[in-house]
């Protein structure tokens, strides 16, 4: 049919021929953006040190991804925002007191970033293939390797330079060591305790303290449908229920008093909000099927409270999420999505 032949270079691909505008890097950068309110509150309360620590984590995360990919001649993906996100999350999970030259601990965040990006993510094949949440492995490594430096908490002075900030204990630390009465005393009264915990005016990791700011960021992600309710609700719900059931203590004997715990204190303190909305929901390391995510969230909540109430650490969110990360592939395998028509087939 030479007479009707036209010279065109036509592109041939498999369908579909239209695609949604969403991209992986847009998702990653949006999550980075949603963390900014909480980071800003950390900066406000803990001053320049908070900014330096977080910036140090971001820079070393991005650089270690860049140099690793260069070294093994892989495609460079530092622009996709995922190494930036790992650095930001790691920084927000560290105490601002790490910015200290005497004793010298500046190297600690750098080591954490390299562990997070190179060993946890790139050694397993890069984005999409890691089993554990990179930022949390980075933090866990640091907590075990530098137990002292990682648990020096400074008062939230809300002073820019914060040079004179005294060290203090976190609310969960006080709760574990001295009990609920001492914790309420430290904040004046119970209502003030709740209010300060909600605003973030308390000792803790840079980005975890302000529940208000975290909820703003989480609300944005939920609105954009980048995350769904399944993990946060099951995580927080389980933690609250267990805090209520097992979190109470008889003030005289010091023994466990059932159904007498204060779930609100547990929800508002530690890294629970940051973990439930921003870390447990990490796409790569949580189950992909919604019903599996509920199981995952329940597991995270239960392990968190087990560690907080019975374990050696005052805080358990990090280890809880990491332990559940191991189960995510198993959950996805055993709780597959419901195939259309298959349920009714069984009933017949």
């Amino acid at each position, binding site marked *: *049919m030479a007479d*009707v*032949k*036209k010279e*065109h*270079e*036509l*592109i*041939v*691909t*498999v*369908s*579909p*021929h*239209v*695609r*949604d505008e*969403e*991209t*992986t890097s*847009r*998702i990653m950068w949006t999550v980075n953006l949603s963390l900014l309110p909480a980071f800003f509150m950390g900066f406000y309360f803990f001053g320049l040190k908070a900014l330096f620590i977080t910036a140090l984590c971001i820079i070393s995360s991005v650089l270690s991804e860049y140099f690793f990919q260069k070294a093994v001649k892989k495609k460079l*993906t530092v622009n*996709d925002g995922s190494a930036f996100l790992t650095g930001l999350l790691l920084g927000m999970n560290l105490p601002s007191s790490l910015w200290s030259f005497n004793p010298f601990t500046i190297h600690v965040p750098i080591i954490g970033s390299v562990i997070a990006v190179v060993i946890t993510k790139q050694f397993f*094949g*890069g*984005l*999409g*293939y890691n089993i554990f949440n990179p930022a949390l492995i980075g933090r866990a490594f640091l907590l075990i390797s530098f137990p002292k430096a990682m648990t020096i908490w400074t008062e939230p002075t809300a002073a820019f330079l914060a040079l004179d900030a005294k060290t203090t204990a976190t609310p969960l630390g006080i709760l574990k060591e001295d009990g609920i009465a001492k914790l309420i005393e430290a904040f004046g009264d119970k209502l003030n305790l709740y209010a300060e915990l909600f605003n973030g005016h308390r000792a803790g990791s840079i980005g975890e303290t302000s529940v208000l700011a975290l909820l703003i960021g989480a609300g944005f992600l939920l609105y954009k449908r980048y995350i769904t309710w399944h993990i946060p609700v099951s995580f927080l719900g389980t933690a609250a229920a267990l805090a209520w059931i097992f979190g109470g203590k008889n003030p005289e004997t010091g023994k466990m008093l059932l159904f007498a715990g204060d779930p609100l204190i547990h929800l508002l303190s530690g890294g629970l909000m940051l973990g439930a909305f921003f870390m447990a929901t990490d*796409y*790569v390391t*949580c189950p*992909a*099927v*919604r019903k599996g995510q509920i199981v995952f969230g329940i597991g995270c909540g239960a392990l968190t409270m087990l560690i907080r109430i019975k374990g050696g650490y005052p805080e358990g969110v990090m280890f809880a999420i990491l332990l559940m990360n191991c189960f995510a592939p198993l959950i*996805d395998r055993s709780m*597959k*999505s*419901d*195939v*259309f*028509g*298959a*349920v*009714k*087939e069984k009933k017949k």
Partner: protein
Amino acid sequence: MMALATFKGGIHPPDKKDLAKDKAIKEAKSPQRVVIPLSQHLGAPCKPIVSIGQEVKKGEVIGEPGGFVSAPVHSSVSGKVIAIAEFPNAMGRMVNSIVIENDGKEEWASLKDNPDYIKLSSDELKEKVKAAGIVGMGGAAFPTLVKLSPPKEKPIDTVILNGAECEPYLTADYRLMLEKSSDIVEGLKILMRILGVNKGFIGIENNKPDAIEKMKDAARNEPNIEVCGLEVKYPQGAEKMLISAITGREVPPRALPMDVRVVVQNVGTALAVYEAARYGKPLIERVVTVTGEGIKTPANLMVKIGTLISDIVEECGGFKDSAGKVVSGGPMMGFALSTLDVPVTKGTSGILVIPEEGVVHAEEYGPCIRCGRCIDICPMGLMPSMLSILPEKGHYEDAKEYNLFDCFECGSCAFVCPSKRPIVQLIRLAKSLTKP
């Protein structure tokens, strides 16, 4: 109005129907020659019954069905057979085809008006459908006669006409529903009579309110026929999704609509059935939407089967600038053409021209980040993420554990994937390298 019928999952691609929706159906120019493939349907190819040099009339049988799951093909022009040889089809396969040079006389073999067609028996009507070579005109091109001949142990109680036209850009069914509404209703009545069914539905997506009104009006004296507005969502027009939306019945995996007592036919097919029953007219032409940002004048054309796509593109003013992709069918499930010298067949619903800047280049895809979007939207409830990861690593057999063969390749997963992964391609690869 009642809540719109729909199914679980699905996506909302931009519908882009404005490009062609207001163009009334126009008779395409009769081409100088037609290339009529002997296999335009699912099932056995036809055997040619003409020889080179033979004169044929319009509507004359030129290929006889090669089995039960097959359908005869007819000449769409009057003229002389000049070649019987293998030619490429829209899917890129070489298919034995008959080339006929058009003498321009448009001489019909036989057309007879039988206004009493509705009094014919079920078997007589089936004979007409068979003789006319009718196949599903929504795209899959499954021989209609087979769907109308369910085994005795599978009783049918409902016929659904598919007017969803959920593929973006396409407007062929929409125009038919506007312009031939009462003929389509007649077609549905014939289908119901053949199957001995007294419940008929016409499912139409809610972005075509005027088509819904027209069809309701055409069916106003038919108490057994109900026009059903459907939520605008892709793939609303997939057979299983449509049945679930309208009747609430779910076709089990690997089963057929007849297993839930339903037969689904496209509205275009219903029209062809009507024309076959009334006039004995074989399926030799169909409406094709020529559309896309890359074509000069979008149109809905009544095209003779066998017309080359290059002729149609020329009739529509050609490409605007340089065409990046030309797709036979819709953007979600259509086939990208490597050459325009392929014929329109009974299943060609559209020709979509995507300009170069609109082409999604698939080679730059990223790893699966397990975001779960594809799982949320898969209308079949599958896990496309795993169905792309496993074949990517060569684990084809393992993909079967994730119900590989229940996928009907609607492309919704690849549409939503933020890493732009070629999920459908990987699924097809796994399917071709394993056995169900």
